[in-house]
């Protein structure tokens, strides 16, 4: 959070309505996202109570588990979940475009371009909150090692056919969501709080209903009051008017409504099992169905408000134009989806429980690179984000006041124009530091040369002004220069590249006097890290090759064996 974001939060608190944190939408949103609003049973690890799911705002599918501790009912739920989710995922698998990928040629060891295909679009999963993302991960983990009767006829308590596959997809989505800037699996609260500041703390912004209340408040109304109602208001029976977005439920709901309903269901079921004859059974079946309908209605009543809130959140986000670089990052998501599609098709085993050393290091390297890339791209896409970087001394904007053409030394001199920029910003310019600007989508680099002194009077002013009172200014030896508020300082830069091959720079490649430009101290693209060894070459410092890499093919690696199960699977 920069001071600029904090200021937005303060403005929101004072006005009672949300304030923008972005001028564009920094995440790609699919035209056909799948929304999932899950609920979980308190106290159990990954025992679902129900869900609303679907791609149609007006007709979600309701799935419930009438007795969450019943393994068969839970499997039935997961099977239904797979029935909705997998066809959605698979509907994106066949629409592909030609693409190139760089691979290491196994024979020559060289990096070569390979023709391949890339899915034209990818399925996008949206859950209400961060806890929902965590639940997707947990569901994925709980399912992917299950064995179906087809896979293993001797498996105790075999899972329904498509459940392990669903587990692998949810695991993939959960893992991808850890990559900064990715958009395959998104939490609505994260999306909204990325784009708006409210007058609450970021902790409170995890409440979707409250967050949305601040954002949706019409002019002249108090979002704060609406948020408070969303958080706390209860009906005469003590139930929250706006149920939490889950997956956890309100204890009052559990104790006062759900527990009695489940008990009625259990009684109806045991009565049915004990039915003496068909006539009695018919009557009891009806009462069981009624008990199930009651639980359905309870689950629907707790998920529907959240379902609607997620879609209203999408509405709010779609009022912002998509940021240019969001499309680039979505391409990365499409690669991720295509890659997993291929692994599934190739019959690879489920993702292991624990990453090996090389995989973990590669994942971390990817995430760090994407984090840096995201920060750079958001700033380049959005003047409000760039303002935060400027305030932090990591970028500066200003008008070009002078351009002097100079050339590099050597046999074939190259253009190295000196560009003077007047800026009121206070970048952390150490001698020789490189800065970058965006030139037709590419980064042009320049080197900081010096601060120029415009005229004597101002120069001296500057020298006096540069004491501790300027605070956040991180300027080194030049602490005194032009720190006054008015004119700002004159920064001299030497442009280094993107000017063509000749002695004379290409047209338009050198800034001209009067141009208004923004230079960043951070790079626009990220360099790749070192290439790590293959897992089978893991060095002794890291325990040597992992077991799975040395297990002869055929035998399931220990990381992939099913979880132990007991007769009473949950308590």
């Amino acid at each position, binding site marked *: 959070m920069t001071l600029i974001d904090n200021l937005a939060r303060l403005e929101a608190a004072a006005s009672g309505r949300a304030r923008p944190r972005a001028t564009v939408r920094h995440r790609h949103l699919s035209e056909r996202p799948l929304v999932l609003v899950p609920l979980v049973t308190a106290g159990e690890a990954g025992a679902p109570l129900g869900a609303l799911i679907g791609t149609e705002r007006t007709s979600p599918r309701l799935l419930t588990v009438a007795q969450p501790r019943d393994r068969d009912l839970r499997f039935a739920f997961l099977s239904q979940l797979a029935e909705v989710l997998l066809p959605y995922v698979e509907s994106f698998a066949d629409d592909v475009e030609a693409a190139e990928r760089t691979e290491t040629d196994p024979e020559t060891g060289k990096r070569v371009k390979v023709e391949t295909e890339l899915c034209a679009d990818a399925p996008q999963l949206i859950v209400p909150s961060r806890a929902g993302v965590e639940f997707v991960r947990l569901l994925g983990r709980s399912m992917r090692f299950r064995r179906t009767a087809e896979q293993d006829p001797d498996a105790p308590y075999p899972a329904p056919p498509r459940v392990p596959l669903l587990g692998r997809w949810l695991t993939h989505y959960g893992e991808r969501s850890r990559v900064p800037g990715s958009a395959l699996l998104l939490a609505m609260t994260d999306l909204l709080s990325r784009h708006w500041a409210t007058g609450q703390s970021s902790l409170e912004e995890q409440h979707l209903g409250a967050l949305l209340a601040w954002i949706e408040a019409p002019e002249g109304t108090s979002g704060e009051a609406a948020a408070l109602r969303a958080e706390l208001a209860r009906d005469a029976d003590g139930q929250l008017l706006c149920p939490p977005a889950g997956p956890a439920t309100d204890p009052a709901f559990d104790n006062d409504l759900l527990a009695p309903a489940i008990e009625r269901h259990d009684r109806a079921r045991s009565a049915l099992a004990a039915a003496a004859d068909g006539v009695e059974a018919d009557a009891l079946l009806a009462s069981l169905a009624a008990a199930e309908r009651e639980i359905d209605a309870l689950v629907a009543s707790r998920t529907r408000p959240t379902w609607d809130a997620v879609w209203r959140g999408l509405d709010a986000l779609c009022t912002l134009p998509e940021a240019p670089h969001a499309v680039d990052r979505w391409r990365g998501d499409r690669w991720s989806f295509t890659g997993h599609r291929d692994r599934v098709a190739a019959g690879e085993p489920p993702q292991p429980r624990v990453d090996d050393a090389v995989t973990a*290091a590669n994942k*971390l390297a990817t995430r*760090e690179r994407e*984090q840096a890339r995201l920060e750079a791209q958001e700033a380049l896409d959005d003047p409000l984000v760039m303002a935060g970087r400027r305030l932090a001394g990591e970028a500066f904007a200003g008008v070009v006041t002078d351009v002097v053409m100079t050339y590099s030394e050597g046999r074939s001199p190259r253009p190295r124009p000196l560009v003077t920029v007047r800026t009121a910003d206070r970048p*952390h310019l150490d001698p020789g530091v490189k800065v970058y600007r965006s030139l037709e989508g590419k980064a042009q680099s320049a080197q900081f040369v010096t601060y120029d002194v415009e005229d004597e009077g101002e120069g001296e002013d500057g020298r006096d002004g540069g004491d*501790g009172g300027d605070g956040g200014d991180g300027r080194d030896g030049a602490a005194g220069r032009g720190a006054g508020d008015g004119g700002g300082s004159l920064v001299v830069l030497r442009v280094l590249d993107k000017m063509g091959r000749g002695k004379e720079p290409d047209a338009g490649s050198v800034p001209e006097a009067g141009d208004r430009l923004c230079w960043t101290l951070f790079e626009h693209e990220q360099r790749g890290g*070192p*290439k790590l060894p293959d897992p089978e070459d893991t060095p002794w*410092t*890291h325990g040597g090759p992992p077991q799975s890499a040395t297990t002869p093919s055929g035998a399931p690696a220990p990381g992939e064996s099913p979880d132990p199960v007991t007769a009473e699977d949950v308590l």
Partner: protein
Amino acid sequence: MTTPAPPPPSSAPPSFDPGAEAGRATDAILHDTLHGTHRGVVVDSPPGAGKSTLVVRAARELAAAGRPLMVVAQTNAQVDDLVLRLAEKDPELPVGRLHSSDADPYDKALDALPNVRKSAKAADLAGLDVVVSTAAKWGHVKDVEPWGHAIVDEAYQMRSDALLAVAGLFERALFVGDPGQLDPFAIAEADQWAGLAYDPSASAVTTLLAHNPTLPQHRLPVSWRLPASAAPLVSDAFYPYTPFRSGTGHEDRSLRFAVPSDGSGPDRVIDEAAVSGWGLLELPARHTPRTDPEAVRAVAHVVRRLLDRGGAATSERSPEPAPLTADRIAVGTAHRDQAAAVRGALAALGVVDVTVDTANRLQGREYDVTVVLHPLSGRPDATAFHLETGRLCVLASRHRHACIVVCRAGVESLLDDHPSMDPVRLGVTVKFPDGWEANHAVFARLREHRVPLVAP
């Protein structure tokens, strides 16, 4: 990991000979490195215990034994510094400096060294006795014959994944570092690997020892930098299970000023620090932004007075007192903007040659007197960053004579309001000490050397 036996009681018998102790430790380390059977040797080195000297000596002895080696350091400045030290000790030694292909990739001073070859390609440096580079650059080196030996310097500041990228380049290695300084960190989510032996975001040494618990572990037991007044505090607060001692006694060092005190807060705290080794200049309690103008000015005034009062430092290095000049003083801060503000305030007082930097950048450096803007001074909250043990440890262990801390009153209440609430990840080796606890311990000691700064 085993913990060494408890240290001798603080009233050590007069027979304690720091030189001999340190010599024994070094001999054992070199023996294990040159003649041991293990693939790795780990050396913990507290502040100023002679880590660089050890690295240079180990490199020269390996080279002299006909065993070429690669040296891995973490920053270009560290690499250049090592190359300069090697050349200073042994100008004939053929040394390679592997560097990046960026502009100005190495210190120009290396150009003056005839036996140092520089290149961006490892192949150009093949056959040299010693080749030195950063971990980042080594990570890109491929298709070379592995070295028989390596020295990994600042190994506690190296991340596990960086070691993974370079470990294939050597058969065996000496790992040297200071466990008390700042830990490496990741800028992206790495929690899911916490507790794994090879957690990529952990330190290289943590991973190495988790997989190779029987490697010999040594410790340099004597700090030659820290004075007798500082070693016990730093050892107790930051190295509770691996204590060390000062190589000098209270009588070996002194700091005197020709100009008497003018009675002001800065002068009184200077005198307190000259006598006791520590000084706390305390400003009235107040919540302030990071670049608290009063605290910044107070830091600058202390530095100005240190220079103006004709300080002279006597130490075991020379019989004659050495003048306390600007290059022997440093200012340490937690944040870059604080450093910049202090530089500005110093410039306004006409001081330009005093080093002012953040803890990160002061790691490994040494001065006669340091002036520290306390990381928690004036803060309304105490975050993990500000409580990090390594940060305070670096700031409190750069000096040979005295350390003066400038701080707003109220740090102890602040600590009490932000009790240690760290999450605990199963399987992660606990790192000692706790930042909250260490901050309390240091502050309890500093309070004994408190001088209030009265508003003018």
